[in-house]
């Protein structure tokens, strides 16, 4: 249900952590049920096309599945957010516009959008429909967030995974817009919405096609040098016998720079901010987002359950909060590359 009151500045209770929300991914109905059953406050999902940034084969929702998902979530007082967070392409504006119509008709609780043209359309035609600024909107400062707020009534902004904790705090202090940050999942080392590496190699990117390093361009090849992973022919990594091979996301490959072969941009690691949870709550962050609409219902269940426990524990007492080893053990099982990082939240990472 749209919560239009909270789109007005001044009515948001920043430090009321009882309203702190856990936002979990759903690439399918079973994943949605897993998220709801394990304690998600909100579930986000997308249509089965290029209008969302996880446009993968076999993933996402048609009308019937969305209706069922909304029924399931609303019956349990949870919200459903629809990610419509790619950029409408010049020849296909209708597809994106109709996605707004379809979402509004389905009765989603909010739209997660990145494109100003789409926001203008949504705010004009569905003034009661709550808008969240997608991470793909690249808003890293409060001036940018104010732009979307003043012109389109954006109620919440999801921050790119490039800000330090101090910078997140600065944003929170200077905008009435609710702030959502990424808590766990695959780590984008680049500013979301400002990365065309994928289309440089394959012709398809998050902005244009809702994909990064798309699977149909991936080739695995065993050679005398090792196991090669290629993206549209470009060698992303080469694994020796016994090495764990990972998906060839192109910013997480090993390359040669100045005579050295290493993860020149980023290691295959997961973002995990469990230890920052009380600080994020105290500074007024309103929601934590879990990445992974492409992951299995089992992943969603496991991660949601851990984060639910952590949030409840931090709510009970921020001072006494500590990260339980069991939580980390659970999350380690599903982390990319079985490694964790605080990413940009922790300045030395940069």
């Amino acid at each position, binding site marked *: 249900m749209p919560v239009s009151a909270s789109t007005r500045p001044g009515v948001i209770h920043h430090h009321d952590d009882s309203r702190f929300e856990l936002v979990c991914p759903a690439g399918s109905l079973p994943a949605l049920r897993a998220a709801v059953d394990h304690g998600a406050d909100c579930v986000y999902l997308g249509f089965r096309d290029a209008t969302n940034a996880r446009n993968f084969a076999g993933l996402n929702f048609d009308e019937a599945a969305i209706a069922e998902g909304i029924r399931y979530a609303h019956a349990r007082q949870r919200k459903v957010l629809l990610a419509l967070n790619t*950029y*409408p*392409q*010049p*020849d296909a*504006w209708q597809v994106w516009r109709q996605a707004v119509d379809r979402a509004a008709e389905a009765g989603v609780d909010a739209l997660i959008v*990145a*494109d*100003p*043209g*789409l926001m*203008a359309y949504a705010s004009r035609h569905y003034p009661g429909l709550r808008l969240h600024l997608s991470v793909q909107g*690249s*808003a*890293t*400062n409060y*001036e*940018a967030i*104010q*732009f*979307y707020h*003043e012109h389109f009534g954006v109620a919440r902004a999801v921050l790119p995974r*490039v*800000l*330090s904790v101090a*910078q997140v705090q*600065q944003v929170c202090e200077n905008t009435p817009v609710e702030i959502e940050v990424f808590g766990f999942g695959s780590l984008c*080392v*680049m*500013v979301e*919405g*400002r*990365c*065309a*590496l994928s*289309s*440089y*190699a*394959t*012709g398809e*990117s998050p*902005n*244009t096609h809702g994909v990064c390093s798309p699977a149909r361009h991936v080739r695995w090849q065993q050679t005398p040098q090792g196991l090669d992973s290629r993206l549209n022919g*470009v*060698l*992303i990594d080469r694994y020796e016998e016994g090495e764990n091979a990972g998906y060839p996301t192109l*910013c997480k490959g*090993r*390359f*040669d*720079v100045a005579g*050295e*072969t290493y993860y*020149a*941009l*980023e290691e295959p690691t997961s973002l995990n901010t469990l230890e920052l949870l009380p600080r994020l709550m105290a500074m007024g962050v309103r929601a934590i987002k879990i990445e992974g609409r492409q992951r299995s219902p089992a992943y969603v269940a496991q991660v949601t359950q851990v984060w639910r426990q952590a949030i409840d524990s931090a709510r009970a007492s921020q001072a006494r909060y500590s990260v339980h080893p069991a939580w980390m053990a659970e999350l380690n099982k599903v982390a990319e590359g079985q490694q964790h990082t605080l990413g940009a939240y922790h*300045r*030395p*990472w*940069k």
Partner: protein
Amino acid sequence: MKIALGPLQYYWPRVTTLEFYAAVADWPVDIVYLGETVCSRRHELRLPDWFEIAGMLAEAGKTPVLSTQVLLESGQELKTLYRITENAQFAVEANDMGAVHRMQGSPFVAGPFLNIYSKPTLDVMAAQGAVRWVMPLEMGRAGLAQLQADRPAGLQTEVFAYGRMPLAFSARCFTARNRNFPKDNCQYVCMEYPDGLLLETRESEAFLTINGIQTQSALTYTLIHELEDLSALGVDVIRLSPQSQGMDEVVRAFRAVLDGQQAAGQAHGQLVPLMPKGPCNGYWHGRPGLDMVQPRAASAA
């Protein structure tokens, strides 16, 4: 069509930068974008220096435009932004929605990183005061033709037509990472790489270029074969992105082709040796950016 010199993406020594722009005053360019758009730690030139260069170029008959930083995070970076957006002297290129917000309806150029992919978004930018927009690098001819067909009245169009393409921005400095320095103590090592630091695949394919927090293509984008087409599409300005060597020749080659003094194929032949790792033009043709589509024989002269 006018020629614009894009903002300098690299970190050059102060004297080198000043000499570069002193030379630009005599080049056949119409518009010059100025300012540090990549990293606020770079300090060889401070904002007043850029204003001074802008004044010098204006006197030389060029139109200077101050470009804002693409990734704005810290309070200090916002302060620099305000000094640019509030300046009463020179035009501004907004490279972040925060900059668009601060322009408060005053005229501005909507930079290539604002993600303008559709007519409704173009309308939003025009309503905000955009007088020109720069096509996203990923967009090709087909998309541009669509947007040109019904662009808002009075809005000019600019297309990135030469240079290593800025493809991604990060909070992390990859040049410092290569040297195992933390970003906060980067020792300004990016100054050692006047055209960025090459990143190759493990089979020695030139793939990307590391330029501090920015990642560029290793190949140099060129639309020298497409200038007639750009003109026919109603493009008003082409943008050439500075490189450390032979930039004057690049500018003169584009000027000569635009003026019909030189065939595109011949000019291309002169430009390729100036490119650090060779040409690409895939995006224009709706293909992966790193592809190089050879021109039809007729225009290859």
